[in-house]
């Protein structure tokens, strides 16, 4: 400090004396009587110590990059941002792939469900699967043997008009598109033949559909019931919540017809 360093006064004493001077002053400062100057210096030094401690703490609590050089930091930053770009690009690519896969999976799912519904409908229509549901059971008593194939065919037509989805006769003959009705032969004692299957009275026709509608289709004036009664038989219609159609139709052949789309 220039303030404290006036021109060196010539000191004639030998160097050892000056050194002893300095040591004596240290001794006095440490163990001598406290002076006003010491208090002032103490306050300022307390300030200095406080500031130094705070600063040391602040530096220590900073993270590892505090001491790093600017070039290093810039390079680190560039590396990090490049890595981030790369990763976010990968992220968006993967998200696109995921969306595509999800879309195609959904489309496949929808197509599969549609195909399954179509398959179910076709299986019911072609009589290749059993069915269950609300419907009616129609019992035709024919003590005189006068109810013929035509009457039964009428009954089936009426039921189809009323929206029957699956029909079977006597638990053996499933009624489908190709079903035919024919008179039975006296030799076997059967009254009717349906799709090569022998059917005897009483005829039990089970139909799945809206049971009220189906029942009305049979009982309306001049309908099946009246027709059978005119032939000397009787008809009973029982709506049921659960009608089982178990019999299956023979698999249809398509030897000659090719589907055109």
């Amino acid at each position, binding site marked *: 400090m220039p*303030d*404290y360093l006036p021109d060196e006064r010539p000191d004639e004493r030998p160097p050892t004396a000056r050194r002893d001077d300095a040591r004596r002053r240290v001794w006095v400062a440490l163990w001598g009587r406290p002076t006003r100057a010491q208090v*002032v210096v103490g306050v300022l030094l307390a300030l200095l110590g406080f500031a130094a401690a*705070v600063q040391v703490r602040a530096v220590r609590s900073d993270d590892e990059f505090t001491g790093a050089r600017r070039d290093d930091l810039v390079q680190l930053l560039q590396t990090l941002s490049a890595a981030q770009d790369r990763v976010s690009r990968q992220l968006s690519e993967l998200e696109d792939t995921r969306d595509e896969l999800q879309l195609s999976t959904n489309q496949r799912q929808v197509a599969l469900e549609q195909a399954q519904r179509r398959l179910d409908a076709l299986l019911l229509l072609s009589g290749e699967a059993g069915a269950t549901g609300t419907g009616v059971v129609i019992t035709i008593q024919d003590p005189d043997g006068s109810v013929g194939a035509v009457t039964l065919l009428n009954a089936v037509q009426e039921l189809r008009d009323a929206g029957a989805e699956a029909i079977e006769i006597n638990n053996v003959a499933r009624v489908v598109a190709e079903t035919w009705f024919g008179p039975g032969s006296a030799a076997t004692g059967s009254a009717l033949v349906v799709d090569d299957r022998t059917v005897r009275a009483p005829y039990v026709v089970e139909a799945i559909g809206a049971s009220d509608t189906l029942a009305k289709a049979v009982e309306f004036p001049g309908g099946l019931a009246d027709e059978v009664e005119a032939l000397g038989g009787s008809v009973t219609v029982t709506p049921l919540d659960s009608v089982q159609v178990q019999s299956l139709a023979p698999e249809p052949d398509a030897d000659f017809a090719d589907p055109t789309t």
Partner: protein
Amino acid sequence: MIALLGMIAGIVAGLFLEPSVPTGLQPYLPIAVVAALDATFGALRAYLDGIFDERVFVISFVSNVLVAGFIVYLGDQLGVGGQLSTGVVVVFGIRIFSNVAAIRRRLLHA
């Protein structure tokens, strides 16, 4: 003795009170500490020379801190704050070294 106790008390207070440096003061605190250190070593040397005056010490202590802070502030305004604070630290470092050398000569004559 009181001076020594004062410094110890200050350090202890700084360590245990855990004050946080205000953001505005952050660049100036280290410079101020170095400036104050320089003033302190200068005062010690003067004391050993027998020409210590507490009035001069107080004034030099405060003005050292203020001028150092002002220089750094000016550097910040001019966009060369980092370089200027480095320069200030270098200057004070040299002075501290020369003061310590003088103290060493007085005490040990070596």
